[in-house]
């Protein structure tokens, strides 16, 4: 699936929810279901700055595709990063770099995009794209 396919899939899922409660409950559940990151990757270096909660992201590349794993000490943040990982994992670095993130608005999480939000969704996207830049440079 392309990044856009995954995003559309997520938009469809969120369209089923009637109110904020269902949306947040879903994100909380996504957070709980996020596969546990290997403890050795939960280092200071892997912490994304700019979040009120701690977020660790680790990336690796296999067959020219980037995979992400992540964790957070806050469950809603973990749900948000789970969505991002689903969108950007198993994708070519070039596609990650070129992807737009309008889907966040469409799933009713626009409030988390504001730079004043302490959860740092903006910082998370930036960090995932930074990994993509690094891997893209390796491929060139």
């Amino acid at each position: 699936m392309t990044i856009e396919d995954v995003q559309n899939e997520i938009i469809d899922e969120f369209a089923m929810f009637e109110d904020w409660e269902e949306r947040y409950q879903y994100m909380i559940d996504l957070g709980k279901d996020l596969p546990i990151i290997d403890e050795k990757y939960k280092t200071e270096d892997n912490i994304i700055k700019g979040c009120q909660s701690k977020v660790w992201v680790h990336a690796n590349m296999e067959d020219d595709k980037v995979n992400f794993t992540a964790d957070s000490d806050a469950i809603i943040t973990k749900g948000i990063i789970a969505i991002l990982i689903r969108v950007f994992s198993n994708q070519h670095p070039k596609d990650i770099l070129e992807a737009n993130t309008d889907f966040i608005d469409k799933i009713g999480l626009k409030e988390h995009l504001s730079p004043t939000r302490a959860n740092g969704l903006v910082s998370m996207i930036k960090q995932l794209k930074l990994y993509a830049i690094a891997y893209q440079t390796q491929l060139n």
Partner: protein
Amino acid sequence: MLDVQKIRKDFPILNRKVNGKQLIYFDNAATSQTPQQVIDVIVDYYSNYNANIHRGVHSLSQEATDAYEQARLKIQKHFNAKNSHEIIFTSGTTHSINLVANGFSSLLKKGDEIIVSALEHHSNIVPWQMLCERTGASLKVIPMNENGELILSEYEALLNKNTKLVFVNHISNALGTINPIEYIIEKAHAVGAAVLVDGAQSCPHLKPDVQALDVDFYVCSAHKICGPTGVGMLYGKEEWLNKLPPYQGGGEMIAEVSFEKTTYAGLPHKFEAGTPNICGGIAFGAALDYMNAIGFENIAEYENELLEYGTAELQKIEGLKIYGTAKEKTSVISFNVGSIHPYDIGTILDKMGIAVRTGHHCAQPIMDFYKIPGTIRASFMFYNTKEEIDAFITALKKAIMMLS
């Protein structure tokens, strides 16, 4: 007795909805809301007599100058300062603290010591670290106990003839602890040290008498006392303010200027370079009028009721732990629930229209002490109600259910 329903009508913002729900504002320790009486003063200023002060001969400038200086007199009276020139308008608590810290650069030398408390806000730690770097003085810290109270025996052990300055907040922003500043001041003076008290969190709840306290410097911000942001004050004893050099150069703070030499204006203008926040200063005075009309004794009594009620209700929730259980504390409750991250609870509460603060409250050393990433902090003002606390408890229980 205070008529809370009547008071609530003074605050237009309390009627608004957030995320479709009636706003419940429990982030008062970060900033308080503004009553119509103060909003009217701001509108009146810009509608009728906006002008630069202290220099114009025209009527508007005279009116603005009079109103601004009247506000200074109100502040003087409120804090019972001996002289009005001991009240310096600043942009707020942080500015006031930096002004004093900067001034002490020329008075300190290597080997001198500065004492701060473990309960400080970042703004009350960093300027002194910078001052120590500049002067070679060293920084000592009064430790706190598990309840969030300063350990006074440790404080006394830190005091010696090298102690030049003691900095302590009157009330802790993160925990609500009321510090025994009378005692702290008395002991500091016994070794010849000056004391600066950060009143940012105390001024909304009590009325400090700077002469009775015999405090050397006292600082606060208007926005926590129903006034606007961007304005605050520094009270300093005349003898101390005269010892400190000017902080910033510019207009207003000079007596005579030539390229060879400039002589500085006297107090308070020496510290008020440039065009000040004129409207803010006037509104600051109006905010004090508003609070004094309600009466600080009434405010303290009512807020204490809210604190006791809120504490009792919160303690009924399983797994909830309150941080800061000092005997003397103000209407601030800092807590966590089980291992749920404070950020998660804050986010869900916001969806239900409830504003609380989450995080480390700019007091990381306190969070390190308790070994927690942060807390949820609910802080009440005299316009909050028990009904709001009930709604908050219901919402909190729902958040806990969603997050568990």
